[in-house]
């Protein structure tokens, strides 16, 4: 692992900016900084978001686990709960549809000139994050811990070998993309 680089704070600030620039470029080129593309996905009429996300996970999952096999990266997968992940995910979903962007694509949309994303969405995200900081001490040991998931990773959950799960997941995700194309979606 490149531990020296990871500990170099100023290098990491620059890297954060560079990763952001590349990420924003790819999000815009992929079409997902567009309001109608995101709403189209949520209305199940345009599958660009799913195609882009699955392609990212298909490539990233293979790459990440190969790098991990050679000791170059480490896992950051954390345990979760129904109280945190399911409830938070559903609250997120309401905002996702209302705004028409997610926290990354809202910044991308703002970069393409969408002022509703800049002055509405991004300001709202700041307020929402601040509200969560207010309630955090009250929910930290309560609802956020309710209903812990039985395992951290899918291989642990299924009690299967890591590479078996990676291959099954890859086949499954490629299968979804093939089905989408065959249905002309």
């Amino acid at each position, binding site marked *: 692992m490149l531990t020296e680089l990871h500990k170099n704070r100023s290098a990491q600030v620059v890297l954060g900016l560079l990763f952001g620039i590349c990420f924003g470029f790819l999000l815009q080129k992929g079409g997902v900084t567009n309001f109608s593309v995101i709403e189209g996905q949520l209305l199940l009429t345009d599958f660009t978001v799913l195609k882009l996300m699955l392609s990212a996970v298909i490539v990233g999952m293979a790459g990440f686990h190969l790098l991990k096999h050679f000791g170059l990266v480490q896992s950051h997968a954390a345990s979760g709960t129904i109280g945190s992940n399911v409830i938070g995910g559903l609250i997120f979903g309401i905002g996702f549809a209302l705004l028409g962007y997610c926290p990354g694509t809202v910044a991308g949309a703002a970069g*393409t000139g969408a002022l509703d994303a800049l002055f509405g969405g991004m300001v709202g995200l700041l307020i929402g994050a601040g509200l969560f900081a207010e309630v955090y001490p009250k929910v930290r040991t309560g609802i956020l811990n309710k209903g812990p998931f039985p395992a951290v990773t899918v291989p642990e959950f299924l009690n299967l070998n890591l590479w078996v799960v990676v291959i099954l997941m890859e086949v499954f995700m490629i299968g979804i993309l093939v089905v989408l194309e065959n249905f002309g979606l």
Partner: protein
Amino acid sequence: MVPYLSEAVWSPYVAGAGIGILSCLAFLLSDRPIGCSTAFVKARGLIGTLISREKTEKKEYYREIVPAVDWAFMIIPGIMIGAAISSLLSGQFHVSWVPPLWSRTFGPDPLVRLLGALAGGIFLGFGSRWAGGCTSGHGINGSIQLSLASMVTACCFFAGGIGMAFLMFRILG
């Protein structure tokens, strides 16, 4: 190469594969997943620090997610710059207040759209921190790591989003 960079859209498979490679590079070079919602906590904390340093530093959440200009903060200005470059190269950059689909359903009033976007942003900011990540942090990078919690969360993002979008555009709209 240059004409390709100025195309209006790429295949989502190509852009997605690029994001997959980028995610691997972030694990390799920065030892972290590419996530976007943490930046909003940090930015909110920095604004709080400007108003009252003492009050902000006392808050438990800002002791866990320390307000600072670091990797997790810089991702958002980076995305804005990257998307601006991409849209300027293809001539897609244009200043707008109301997306056409919104306008057809809820009217062209910019104030209505601004309030809708603001409310959406609040839910998004609150929900992403409640769930501990966003479409990128959980949806892409958690799934890459085969995190069970992240995959469940990603399904809930879309379950909630699909329900709300149908309510907005099919039932009310």
